[in-house]
């Protein structure tokens, strides 16, 4: 069984400041790693994912996350946030096996960007 811990439930940040959202996971098998974002009154959308290869992955809107196997972490960062980045962010894992892609989510981190 897997579990995901997001260490911060809320992160207030000023516009144009950097932000880091922390995610740690636990699993007895190898996993794929994901970050999903949920904007107000919208469904979950994939932000980025790590499947294999380079441990640093990037999204099209400036976010990046680094897979650290030894620390079982997948922290999300953005060097300069915009007001539009206000949302809830969920870290998730799925097992690398043939039984499907079920996701185990963390509790979420709510990011509030202030002007």
């Amino acid at each position, binding site marked *: 069984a897997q579990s*995901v811990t*997001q260490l911060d*439930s809320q992160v207030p940040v000023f516009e144009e400041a950097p932000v880091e959202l922390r995610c740690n996971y636990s699993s007895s098998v190898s996993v*794929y790693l*994901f970050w*999903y974002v949920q904007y107000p009154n*919208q*469904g*979950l*959308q*994939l932000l980025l*994912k790590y*499947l294999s290869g380079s441990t640093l992955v990037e999204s099209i809107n400036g976010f990046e996350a680094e897979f650290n196997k030894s620390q079982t972490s997948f922290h999300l960062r953005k060097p300069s946030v915009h007001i539009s980045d206000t949302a809830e962010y*969920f870290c*998730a894992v*799925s097992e*690398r*096996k*043939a*039984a*499907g*892609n*079920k*996701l*185990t*989510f*963390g*509790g*979420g981190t709510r990011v509030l960007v202030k002007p």
Partner: protein
Amino acid sequence: EAGVAQSPRYKIIEKRQSVAFWCNPISGHATLYWYQQILGQGPKLLIQFQNNGVVDDSQLPKDRFSAERLKGVDSTLKIQPAKLEDSAVYLCASSLATLGTEAFFGQGTRLTVV
């Protein structure tokens, strides 16, 4: 490309009543998931279908919850009878069967049990 469709968007019922949610996944997606998201928590998987077969329903409270996916396309999730603690957003998602592929989520149904 049409996304995952869910209905209704909102539902208010009294405890002990029954309720049903409907989901239409993205065309061609073999895998369909139902998640429950309680306020302030991350989504929790209730049931996963591959075509019209159940892959995982280990966290589905089977004494009151049921789900089906007839013909491997649309799906319904039913609660009977509802309890106060069932108040949550019920999310449907779909994906291709390929490992590591993205799951696409619908907007969810917000259920309030009073």
